[in-house]
């Protein structure tokens, strides 16, 4: 019985939300469409995963949050609608401002992919090189252990002053964020490779190239993907923080720019978009993991 109520509750809340949306608002509203789309997307997701009670719980929490948000800001009449924007207005920004938003997302993603590209190539390459040499790793690891915990954001003012463009500075800072974890994971994985695997590889008389390509890299791949998945969130954090300093596009810039004009409707929307983009990126990394390390149970 309890379980039945639990399963039906999100759908009831969905209906409550939809009815609430169509009740007269105190302020003028441009369009309810985006807000409805958001509610319907959540509902579809809950229906698709209806067998999972976790999905129901998440649905309930999301609907309750949206209902309260909608009620307080649009229906009950908060005095300061500038500071507390109603959800239909926040989601409505997408229709009004989609060109700017998409441009911002693309600009942030492009920067992120460049940084990931550089960090992965350098991190894996240098990690292999250093990890394979006792002397190099013995000398460099203590130094790296001092440098790598310094949060790279701290370099951003210096990097902006030092490098020719803001973009270069942002790429540098974000690359550094990803690079250290990639490099460390690669060095440690090469140095602490399973002795059984190493013995087996040595008795096969592998060439150096074969050893790297067919043994060391696949062996390190789970570690590399783990670093990537940890780095996605932190690098986005660094990126948006960097964008708030001096960029002219990107999601961080969008939020900063609009808060300078006290347009908090757009600010809230920018924040929501950052959450959406990070989630999409994490999903992408999850797919990558499934694709590349099928062998791991």
């Amino acid at each position, binding site marked *: 019985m309890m379980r039945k109520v639990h399963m039906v509750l999100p759908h009831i809340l969905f209906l409550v939300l939809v009815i609430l949306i169509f009740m007269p608002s105190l302020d003028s509203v441009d369009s309810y469409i985006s807000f409805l789309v958001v509610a319907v997307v959540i509902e579809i997701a809950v229906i698709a995963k209806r067998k999972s009670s976790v999905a129901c719980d998440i649905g309930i929490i999301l609907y309750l949050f949206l209902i309260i948000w909608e009620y307080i800001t649009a229906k009950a009449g908060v005095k300061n609608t500038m500071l507390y924007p109603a959800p239909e207005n926040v989601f409505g920004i997408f229709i009004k401002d989609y060109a700017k938003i998409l441009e911002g997302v693309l600009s942030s993603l492009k920067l992120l992919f460049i940084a990931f590209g550089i960090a992965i190539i350098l991190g894996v390459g240098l990690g292999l090189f250093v990890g394979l040499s006792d002397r190099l790793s013995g000398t460099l690891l203590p130094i790296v252990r001092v440098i790598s915990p310094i949060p790279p954001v701290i370099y951003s003012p210096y990097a902006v002053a030092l490098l020719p463009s803001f973009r270069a500075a942002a790429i540098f800072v974000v690359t550094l964020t990803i690079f250290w974890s990639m490099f460390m994971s690669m060095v440690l994985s090469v140095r602490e490779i399973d002795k059984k695997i190493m013995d087996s590889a040595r*008795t*096969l*008389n592998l060439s150096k190239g074969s050893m790297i390509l067919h043994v060391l890299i696949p062996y390190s791949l789970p570690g590399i993907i783990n670093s990537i998945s940890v780095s996605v969130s932190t690098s986005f954090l660094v990126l948006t923080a960097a964008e708030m300093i001096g960029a002219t596009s990107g999601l961080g810039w969008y939020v900063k720019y609009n808060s300078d004009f006290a347009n908090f409707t757009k600010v809230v929307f920018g924040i929501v978009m950052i959450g959406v983009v990070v989630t999409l990126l994490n999903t992408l990394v999850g797919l990558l993991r499934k694709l590349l*390390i099928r062998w791991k149970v």
Partner: protein
Amino acid sequence: MEKIVFEDIALDYRERGGTVFNALDGVSFTVNEGEFVSIIGSSGCGKSTILSVLAGLNEPKSGSYRIDGTETRGTGKNRGVVFQHYSLFPWMTIRKNIEFGIKQNFPKQSKKELAEKADLYLKKVGLKGFENRYPSQLSGGMQQRAAIARTLAMETDILLMDEPFGAIDAKNRIILQDLLLDILDTADVKKTIIFVTHDVDEAILMSDRILFMKNKKIEKDINVPFPRPRKRNELLERSGFRQFRQRIVNLFYFDEDEKQDFQEGEGI
């Protein structure tokens, strides 16, 4: 013809703390071409170390060894190794593992030849139908079959096996012993095999000669007097089997003084 000659090999291991301990203390023996020699002894006696020296994974401190009359160091294409723990690469399917092994010894083979050879050995070890699985999707026994197939497929004259069935349950161990005997008996080219085990029955069933190790040295060199090809059940019923087995088991229990009644070559 002498295939492997071990001369006065000594080896020390350095532990992490820096303490050095002796693992082999002047080991000498000879293995003839086509011979199956088992090395037995209690754990820690150095039997696996001999194998790792032969495989080229450990450098001796002093002494030297020759293979086919040539002084040898490091790993080489004339030796194939099977370890106790599944030494397959977990990121390659069973077929890829075997083909990868073949490719190292026969770099010029075409894709088709590779696949055919892999098929042949997959069939020999009874893994047909499992070739596209990853090692983690197979049981320990099946992984060991695959490891044996990979090593056999490299077609080396020398096989070094380090307790290959040591981690496998009793039933599968019997199956794998019989399988290996069968593959070796029916092979076109006689292989020279050094087989490390702590299982006396296994050593008797499989080998032409048994080297008994104690205190980092070879203590006894015993010929196994039973003709080949051997069948497990026939062997167990043979007169003299129990006595011979007891004699070897006793080696583990006698201490220095009591074992005097054993004279060299008495096992025959």
